[in-house]
C-alpha cells in the first residue's frame, strides 16, 4: 500500500494472518511527522535529565574546594564563618529552620487546602464553584515579595498575641519555648511557616480540586445508593480516589515552601552568630535560600561563594529526596485505586 509520504511500515510488516494492521508499540508508521514528534519528545526528556545532572555537577564542583577547607563539621555545625583562611561553617541551623518552617506550612496548608477543594467540588452550589476556583488560582499568581511585605507589615503585628498564647499553654515543649531571648516579634519560624502556608495553599487546593473532580460518578453514586451520607461518600470514594493527587500536590507545595526566598528574607529575623541552639519555633534563623540570597551581593572570593553553594547543594538534595519519597508513595497508592 504505497502512500504519498513514502513507504509505510504497514507496507513491510505482515503478520501470519495476513492482517496488515500493526498493534501496540509497533503502531508507529515511520512517517516523517511521527519521527519528528518522537524525536522532539525524546529530546525534551533528555534535556531535563541533562539539566538536573549538570546543575548537580556545577554545585558539586563549586562546593567541593570550599568544603575541603571547612574547619567545622559541615552537617552538624551551627557556625557560619566563611571568610579568612580558616573558614568554619555548617548547615545545622539552616537545615532546621528550612525544614521546620516548611513542615509548619504543610501542617496548615494541606488540611485546609483539601477542605477547600472538597468544598469547591462537592459542597458549593454550581454558580459559586467556578469563581471560587478561579480566586484560589489567583492566589497562586501573587508574587512572593507581596506576601513578604504583607506578612511583615500587615499580618506580622497581629501574630504576637497568638504566639505568646501558644507558648503560655505549651511552653513546656521545647518547640514552643518562648524564652529564647533572640527574636522579639513577628520574625519567627512559626510566623514564616504561617505565611508560607498561605503561599502553598493555592497549589495544594488547585491540584486537589482537579483530582477530586475526576472521581468517577459511578463510585459516588454507588456509595450514596448504599445509604452513605455525603461525608461518608466523600470518605469512602472521593478521598481514596484523590489520595495520590493530594500527595503529589503536597509535595509540589513543599517544594515551594522549601525553596521560598524573598518572603522568608523579608520576614524572618536572623540570629546573632553566637546565639545558643534552640528547638523553638519562636526563634529566628535563616533558611538555605534566604541565607544565600541575603549574602549574594558580597560573594567576593571563590571560597565564600563555594560555601554558600555547598548549602545550596544540600537544599537541592533535600528537595530531590522529598520528591523521590513522594514518587514512591504515589506509585504504591495507585495500585489500590485502579
Amino acid at each position: 500500500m504505497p502512500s504519498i509520504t513514502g513507504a509505510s511500515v504497514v507496507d513491510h510488516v505482515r503478520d501470519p494472518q495476513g492482517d496488515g494492521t500493526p498493534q501496540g508499540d509497533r503502531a508507529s508508521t515511520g512517517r516523517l511527522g511521527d519521527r519528528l514528534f518522537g524525536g522532539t519528545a525524546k529530546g525534551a526528556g533528555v534535556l531535563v535529565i541533562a539539566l538536573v545532572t549538570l546543575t548537580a555537577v556545577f554545585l558539586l564542583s563549586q562546593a567541593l574546594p570550599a568544603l575541603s577547607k571547612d574547619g567545622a563539621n559541615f552537617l552538624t555545625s551551627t557556625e557560619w564563618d566563611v571568610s579568612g583562611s580558616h573558614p568554619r561553617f555548617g548547615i545545622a541551623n539552616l537545615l532546621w529552620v528550612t525544614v521546620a518552617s516548611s513542615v509548619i506550612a504543610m501542617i496548615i496548608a494541606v488540611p485546609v487546602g483539601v477542605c477547600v477543594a472538597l468544598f469547591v467540588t462537592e459542597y458549593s452550589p454550581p454558580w459559586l464553584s467556578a469563581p471560587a476556583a478561579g480566586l484560589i488560582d489567583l492566589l497562586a499568581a501573587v508574587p512572593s515579595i507581596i506576601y513578604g511585605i504583607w506578612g511583615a507589615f500587615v499580618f506580622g503585628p497581629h501574630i504576637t498575641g497568638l504566639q505568646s498564647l501558644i507558648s503560655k499553654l505549651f511552653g513546656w515543649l521545647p518547640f514552643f519555648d518562648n524564652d529564647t531571648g533572640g527574636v522579639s516579634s513577628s520574625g519567627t519560624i512559626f510566623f514564616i511557616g504561617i505565611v508560607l502556608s498561605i503561599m502553598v495553599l493555592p497549589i495544594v487546593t488547585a491540584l486537589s480540586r482537579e483530582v477530586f473532580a475526576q472521581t468517577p460518578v459511578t463510585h459516588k453514586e454507588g456509595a450514596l445508593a448504599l445509604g452513605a451520607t455525603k461525608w461518608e461518600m466523600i470518605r469512602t470514594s472521593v478521598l481514596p480516589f484523590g489520595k495520590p493527587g493530594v500527595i503529589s500536590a503536597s509535595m509540589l507545595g513543599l517544594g515551594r515552601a522549601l525553596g521560598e526566598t524573598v518572603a522568608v528574607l523579608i520576614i524572618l529575623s536572623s540570629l546573632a552568630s553566637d546565639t545558643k541552639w534552640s528547638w523553638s519555633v519562636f526563634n529566628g534563623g535563616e533558611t538555605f535560600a534566604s541565607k544565600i540570597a541575603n549574602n549574594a551581593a558580597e560573594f567576593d572570593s571563590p571560597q565564600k561563594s563555594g560555601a554558600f553553594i555547598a548549602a545550596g547543594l544540600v537544599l537541592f538534595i533535600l528537595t530531590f529526596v522529598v520528591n523521590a519519597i513522594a514518587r514512591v508513595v504515589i506509585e504504591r497508592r495507585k495500585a489500590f485505586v485502579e
Partner: protein
Amino acid sequence: MNIQSRRRLASVTGIALVGTFAISGCASDNNSSAAPSASGAKSNPVNCAKGTLNGEGSSAQKNAIEQAITDFQTACPGATINYNPTGSGAGIKQFIAGQVDFAGSDSALKTKPAEGATNIEQADADKACGSPAWNIPMVTGPIAVAYNVKGVDKLILTPAVTAKIFDGTIKTWNDPAIAAINPGVTLPTTAIKVFFRSDESGTTENFTKYLSAAAPKDWTAKPGKKWTGKGEGKEKSAGVSSGVKGAEGGITYVEWSYAKDNQLGIAQIDNGAGPVALSGEAVGKAVSAAKQAGTGNDLALKLDYATKESGAYPILLVTYEIVCSKGKDPAKATLTKAFLQSFAAADMQTKLQEIGYAPLPADIQAKVLTSVNALS
C-alpha cells in the same frame, strides 16, 4: 533593574513600600525636574563629553550617584553613564577584571593582602589600569543610631554605652549607664531590642570600626562586614529600620536617610567633647579631621572614629570612586573626568544632603577637584 521599572514599581506598590523604596527611585526623580537647569546655568558649567561609561560597586552611594548621573546626562546629551550597585566587593572585582570603567567602594583599595588571599587589591588595580588607580572620596554617608522609645525625643550616647547596648550588656532602657548620660530624660523600663543587618554590609563594617576605635575596651570583636554583636537580624537598611519602627524599645544603626524616612529617633553621639546631633555640617567636620592615607592625588582617607573634635559627628562611611589615573581609552578618560567633576561640584554635593548624604567639607572637596582635574 533599571530606573524606569523601579519607578513604576514604586508607584504601583505605593504605601506598603514607602519605607522600602522611599529613597530609591522617587528621591532622584523629585529633584531632577528643577535641578539640571540650575546646575547647568550656575557658575561652574558642566564640562561635557560624549560616550558611555560603566561603573559598578557600593550600594551605599547608589542614590547619590544616580542623582549625579541624572543631572550629568541631562546637562550633557550624548553621555550615558551606567552604575550597577552590586556591592563594593563586586565593583572592585569587576574593575580589576577590566569590565567596568570605574568602581564605587565603601572602602579604599586595600594595600595589604586580605585575609585568606595573597593578592593585593591596590597592586591588581594598578596593573589593570597600567597606571596608579586612585581612590577619590565622593560621597559621605552618615550612619545614625536610630531608636524607637516612646517619650524619649532626645537621647545622648557615648561610645562605651553604645557598645554595651549593641553587645547585649545593657538590656533595658532605664539602665543606670544610660540614665547617667541623659539627665532629665525619663527612660522607660522597656527591654532594648537590637536590630542588625543580616546581610554583610559596609554599614556594619563602618559602625563596628567606630565602636572598636572609640570604645576599644567595650567592643572587643574585630570590625567587619558581618555583625558580631547581639540582637536580631533584618535584611538590608529597609529591614532594620522598619524592624525598629515596629518594635517598642528597638535600636539599630542605619543610614541617615532611612532613620529620617521612618521617623525614628536619632541619638546624639558624645565622643568626649559634648553631644553632637547628626547633621551634614557635623559629619563634614569629622571628614575634615580624617588623615589622608593615600599619597598625592590618591585621596584614600583614614577616618578618625575616636575624634574628640567638638561638633564632629564620628559615625560615618565615606564611599569612593576608584578610577585609573591615566585611562587606557582617551575618550572614556575624558568622560570620566567630566562626570566626576560635576559629581564633586559644590552645588551637586549640597544637593546630596536632601537625599540623606552629607556633602564633602570644603577643604576635602577642593582636594577631590584637584585630583579629578589631574585625571588624564
